């Protein structure tokens, strides 16, 4: 019993994932059989029906491009018509297709996968890494998401956990997890900012840490900004240069594009570490005469900084917003913590130092700290001793649709969760049987500029003349940041019966089917990178 009662913490990243458990009171990142501590969030469907996940799978982005999915987190919980999906379709070598209710699906050969199913395979790999290490099964987990994720994205991540056969005890915000790992067992009283620049998302949270309390004062973010965008800049630079010299646009071929992308990512890391990157890709394409061509270039730090400066500046607009939300100025902070691979870049570190007017906290591994925090929370939920408390907030304003394409606020952003708020509605037709409510998240009063969470339809209340029936609709945001909506007839207190949720999410039946598919999928073992 005691042995199986282990709960794992999983940082499910856009580019890389990481898994941790609490061992003898200390968070410990679990490496795979080759000692790798972080694992590319890449899922490669092999010809023999097995699935390869992690750093070995990453090589298949080029060699098995059609059947290898990466950056799934950019698509999870999004609608098919969203800009992010359109953008991904242009650059991803795998096939992105439309599912029911405007959902996004991935087609691999003849099989159709939902995004939670893809992420579930990454989670399955994380789970099996721990099981290999411990020698027994694990079931319970805390999975992290960017703080700025909306309800659809959180829900989809939770579904991914269920499909992978995990009991997801909590969906935890990445910056909150990092703060927890930082302050855990330290007995400090500080106000800190967590600057979390990941592969595909950017978050910043301002927290107050007390003896046993971790209170998030505000959070802000941009789910369209991350290390991938830095790679894109290098890619554009390389491609333009190649086009000018050779008259061939490498971006028109998805195979060349992947080689270019890989070279750009490596160049970014090299330039960050060595101040200069020598880029060399042999045989990137053939010219019209059939001659094989190579790509060579040298990227200096000055050049690189010039390319990405506007991206770095964009993060500080988000920081301004977070500080404003916490009603603080940068000099009132006691510490700044950097999270995410791209924060290793000198341009990011010096700019952050400059913006906050202080040195960033040393000794924190930006790749592992989120998973570490998740494992602390996972264990704390398991033993319920309540040695510390996380007081988190909702990142986005919850809204309901009103007439004329407008919305009305229900719950403000940065409101502590869990929370609930009720609103009353009346019927506007005689004999009306249903009331329909559209729920949104976002900061604009125009519905079109917000994210639609779903359309809720309530029925089962009294049938009466217009205006006679009052229905109280209760909006709840739970500790996972997930929205629940219920309704009751005010006069009779009768809870209305059916709550239909129309969104791109998965139904219970779909999840059950996906669970079986996931469980029967064999994870291929690759080789050391």
């Amino acid at each position, binding site marked *: 019993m005691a042995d199986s009662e282990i709960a794992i913490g999983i940082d499910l990243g856009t580019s890389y994932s990481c898994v941790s458990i609490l061992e003898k009171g200390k968070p410990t990142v679990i490496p795979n059989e080759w000692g790798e501590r972080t694992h590319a969030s890449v899922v490669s469907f092999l010809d023999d029906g097995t699935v390869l996940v992690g750093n070995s799978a990453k090589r298949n982005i080029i060699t098995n491009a059609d059947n290898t999915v990466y950056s799934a987190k950019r698509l999870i919980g999004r609608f098919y018509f969203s800009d992010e999906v359109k953008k991904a379709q242009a650059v991803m070598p795998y096939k992105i297709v439309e599912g029911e209710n405007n959902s996004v699906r991935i087609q691999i050969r003849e099989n159709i996968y939902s995004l939670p199913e893809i992420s579930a395979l990454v989670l399955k790999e994380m789970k099996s890494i721990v099981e290999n290490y411990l020698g027994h099964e694990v079931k319970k987990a805390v999975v992290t998401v960017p703080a700025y994720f909306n309800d659809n994205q959180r829900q989809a991540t939770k579904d991914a956990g269920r499909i992978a056969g995990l009991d997801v*005890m909590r969906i935890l915000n990445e910056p909150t997890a990092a703060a927890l790992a930082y302050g855990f067992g330290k007995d400090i009283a500080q106000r800190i900012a967590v600057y979390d620049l990941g592969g595909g998302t950017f978050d910043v949270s301002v927290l107050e840490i*007390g003896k*046993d*309390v971790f*209170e998030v004062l505000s959070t802000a973010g941009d789910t369209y900004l991350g290390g991938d965008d830095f790679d894109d800049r290098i890619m554009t630079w390389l491609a333009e240069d190649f086009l000018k010299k050779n008259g061939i646009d490498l971006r028109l071929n998805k195979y060349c594009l992947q080689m270019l992308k890989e070279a750009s990512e490596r160049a970014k890391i090299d330039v960050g570490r060595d101040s200069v990157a020598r880029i060399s890709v042999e045989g990137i394409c053939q010219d019209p005469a059939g001659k094989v061509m190579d790509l060579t270039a040298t990227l200096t730090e000055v050049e690189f900084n010039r390319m990405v400066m506007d991206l770095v500046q964009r993060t500080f607009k988000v920081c301004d917003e977070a500080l404003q939300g916490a009603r603080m100025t940068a000099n009132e902070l006691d510490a700044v913590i950097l999270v995410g691979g791209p924060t290793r870049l000198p341009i990011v570190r010096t700019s952050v130092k400059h913006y906050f007017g202080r040195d960033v906290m040393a000794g924190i591994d930006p790749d592992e700290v989120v998973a570490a925090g998740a494992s602390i929370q996972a264990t*704390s*939920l*398991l*033993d*319920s001793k*309540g040695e510390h*408390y*996380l*007081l988190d907030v909702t990142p986005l304003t919850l809204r309901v649709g*009103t007439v004329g394409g407008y919305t*009305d*606020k229900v719950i403000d952003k940065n*409101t*502590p*969760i*869990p*929370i*609930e708020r009720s609103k009353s509605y009346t019927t506007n037709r005689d004999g009306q049987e249903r009331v329909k409510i559209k729920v949104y998240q976002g900061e604009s*009063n125009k519905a079109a500029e917000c994210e639609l969470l779903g359309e809720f339809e309530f029925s089962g209340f009294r049938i009466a003349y217009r205006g006679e029936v009052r229905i109280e609709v209760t909006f*709840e945001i739970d*500790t996972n940041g997930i929205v629940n909506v219920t309704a009751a007839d005010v006069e009779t207190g009768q809870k209305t019966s059916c709550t239909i949720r129309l969104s791109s999410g998965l139904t219970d039946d779909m999840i059950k089917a996906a669970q079986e598919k996931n469980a029967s999928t064999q994870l291929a073992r690759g080789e050391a990178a």
Partner: protein
Amino acid sequence: MDEGFEIEAQALAQILDELDYFQILKVSQNASPDEIKAAYYRESRAYHPDRFFQLPDCELKTTVGRIYKRINEASLCLRDGARRLKYLTDVSGPDRARRLRFVEASEQELKKDKEQEIGTTPQGRKFFMAGMQDLAALRFAAAERNFKMAITYEPANPNYKAKRDEAAKLVKSDFVVR
């Protein structure tokens, strides 16, 4: 979980809808911001749902969840100077029972208030606006007539009645323009 806590939680849940935010956080109405924060942390320690995470779904778990949501609601209101001020006025007034849960006036409600003022029917509004012009031009008798006409369209509009009374009073007062 000890029995004393369970009894206390159930008792608190019973009267939750009769308590104001100060009572929920167990602070006085003139508590300092620091005292309110300390109270919020103290109550979080007692009622945070994570403490009860491993309980099977049961009445206590639901109860604690309900209480904690209200604690967050109280903290959200009382830790903001402007909201706290408005809330204090709300719960100190005669309408206390209905104002225990702070609600910010929504954009729509503000519009509704405005509508209430000038009227909701086109004819009512027309006569009301004419009356307001008469009033401004010191034609009190004409104003009174227009307000009376407006009332025939919207008999329940309190603002119309107030203006009619005001005009009637001015008519009687032999108001002299200097």
